[in-house]
């Protein structure tokens, strides 16, 4: 049933329907509305058999989730930005231990300068942490991906991060069909941990592993993630059968079939991109859009198929690696056939709006072969000059 609902609340209610047993959270904007709503669910008794733990830091949030998951509970937390970095050590630990924790990341910039607005710097910085990363295009996807995330995490015994754009999605009220309790119960079976702390069958979890076996542990983590590439579309089909709506689990191509230029992006900017491309197609420019839902594992084969014969690939990045360039582009480059042109456009850092006008101008330049390999959308030259003029 569709309802007008804030993104955070839609996610919180969906997570609640996934019957988590331990929720731990430390507040950080723009994640707060999600955990506030979950706290209320637990405190009011609407969500039973669940412990809500108010922790003293994000490092503790992920650590509580680690302990809870290892003790056989379905564990959930949410964070953003600095909070994600503060738990970075524990992120690697959770994936190394193969604990199927699900976490929402309300994507936000990383300081300094301190900035609470949306970009993808936080999640992108943890791309090598061993977590599966799924990016939501809108709040329906954000809600749905959480149901999928719990199922995938527990099947593969690996943690999953659901990334949704801070404020743009978390605080936006739009029509969402919140997955119902009955449907979620049909799709998501009770958590059966692969291994669990149990006095009746004592296990040592988290032993020290030396050079003789460390590589193998990492290799297996890699193959496990690759398994997700095969499993995600299957689960998406099952999801569609259960919930009667589609869910793009790997990639979402839009008007790519006959496109000579394809724009690759993640998250809420895809909506603006699709609108922009519609307009440009009317003006005779065959441009398509390819949204990535899965960033880890990287859906290389699906991207290659979706891109087809397009000559130019423009990657719209909501984060970047200073001193190097695009992050998604770097993963994409080896996938592309040698005869393709690859452009990186860094856009919308720290919450700067990515407008249709700017996109149209940039994509038109790409279409005409006039775009530099790396550009920054709407770079304010006046501010750059001012920075140069600051007396030392």
């Amino acid at each position: 049933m569709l309802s007008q609902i804030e993104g955070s609340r839609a996610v919180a209610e969906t997570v609640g329907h996934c019957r988590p047993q331990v929720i731990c959270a430390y507040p950080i904007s723009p994640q707060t509305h999600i955990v506030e709503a979950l706290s209320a669910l637990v405190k009011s008794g609407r969500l039973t058999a669940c412990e809500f733990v108010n922790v003293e830091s994000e490092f503790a949030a992920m650590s509580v989730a680690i302990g809870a998951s290892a003790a056989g509970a379905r564990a959930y937390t949410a964070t953003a930005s600095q909070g994600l970095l503060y738990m970075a050590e524990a992120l690697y630990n959770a994936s190394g231990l193969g604990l199927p924790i699900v976490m929402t990341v309300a994507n936000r910039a990383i300081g300094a300068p301190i900035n609470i607005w949306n970009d993808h710097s936080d999640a992108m910085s943890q791309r090598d942490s061993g977590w599966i990363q799924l990016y939501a295009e809108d709040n329906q996807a954000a809600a749905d991906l959480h149901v999928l995330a719990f199922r995938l995490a527990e099947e593969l015994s690996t943690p999953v991060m659901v990334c949704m754009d801070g404020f743009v999605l978390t605080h936006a009220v739009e029509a969402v069909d919140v997955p119902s309790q009955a449907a979620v119960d049909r799709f998501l079976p009770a958590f059966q941990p692969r291994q669990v702390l149990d006095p009746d069958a004592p296990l040592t979890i988290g032993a020290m592993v030396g050079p003789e076996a460390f590589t193998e542990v990492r290799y297996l983590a890699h193959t496990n993630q690759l398994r997700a590439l095969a499993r995600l579309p299957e689960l998406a089909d099952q999801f569609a059968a259960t919930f009667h709506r589609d869910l793009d689990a790997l990639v979402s191509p839009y008007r790519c079939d006959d496109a000579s230029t394809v724009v690759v992006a993640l998250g809420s900017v895809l909506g603006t991109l699709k609108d922009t491309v519609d307009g440009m197609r009317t003006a005779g420019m065959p441009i398509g859009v390819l949204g990535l839902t899965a960033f880890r594992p990287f859906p290389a084969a699906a991207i290659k198929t979706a891109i087809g014969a397009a000559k130019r690939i423009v990657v719209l990045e909501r984060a970047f690696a200073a001193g190097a360039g695009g992050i998604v582009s770097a993963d994409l480059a080896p996938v592309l056939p040698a005869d393709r042109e690859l452009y990186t456009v860094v856009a919308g850092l720290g919450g700067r709006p990515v407008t249709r006008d700017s996109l149209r101008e940039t994509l038109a330049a790409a279409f005409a072969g006039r775009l530099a390999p790396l550009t920054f959308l709407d770079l304010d030259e006046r501010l750059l000059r001012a920075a140069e003029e600051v007396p030392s």
Partner: protein
Amino acid sequence: MTQHVRFYQTGSFAVGNRLLPAEARTVQSDPTRANSLTSGHRACRGCGEALGARYVLDAAMRATGGRLVTVNATGCLEVFSTPYPESSWRVPWLHSLFGNAPAVASGVAAALKARGRTDIRVLGQGGDGGTVDIGFGALSGMFERGDDVLFVCYDNQGYMNTGVQRSGATPPAARTSTTQAVGPAPGNVFGQGKSAPLIAMAHEIPYVATATIADLHDLESKVERAMGLHGARYLHVLVPCPLGWGSDAAQTVRIARLAVQSGLFPVFEAERGAVSAVSPIRHRVLVEEYLRPQARFRHLFEPERRADVIDGLQAIADRNIRRFGLLPGEQT
């Protein structure tokens, strides 16, 4: 120093003592003991932490009827007990990181509660680095929330696993590899460091206690006491480290006893923020007797005796004795 070797040390409560009546034996002398941390691990000879952990866990196992789950911080105890593919643990055991063991233990406790498995109890453990330094935020969080966890700190007063660096539990004047015995004020600085048990008490949790491996019956009874309570509990156990302290491996227990008898390590219990019992010093010794057998304090005696520094340490011991009333009947 001459040592008289006695294979059966009746009355000393030493490991393997089977000449005592059954009710007076330690858990370790009980043929049905859990052996939670079993033999074959890679601790150094004379390791106080291995001894302490064995007693703590077996006592906890007995107190809980074997319904126990443990969480371990990174450190010596974790490293020497679990070199893959081996493990010395016969209890469910989880190691995550250096600085998060109390939070992980909280998570385990929350999971057990949510799953309706409150018959299973949780014990977290770590060294002084993992407890009083890098894990302190998590420990304080666990305390203030009152999570149902007993956290045990095996305090060997430094980062021994990484090569004997100073921690917040290193005593003044002690030589470590980051407070060298050089310069005008050799060793660790006076006026630094913290008392984790006193800070634990400030959280007004149900139970805080200190103990050493010199009195294993006392250690066991405190574990038993702690496991009989619910909520956040804290046990701080002094465990000498022959490697880091530069002491004879055969003297570990004796040195722990001297720490208590000198007054440098007060042994007490506290309930809800107030001291409820202290172990009185039976045979008081001067701190010098405790310091001399340890190479980490050698610079206080060679090349010349540093009376000023020794007096400074004696003053700390005297203050402990006054503060905790460790010498009842004596006006101090």
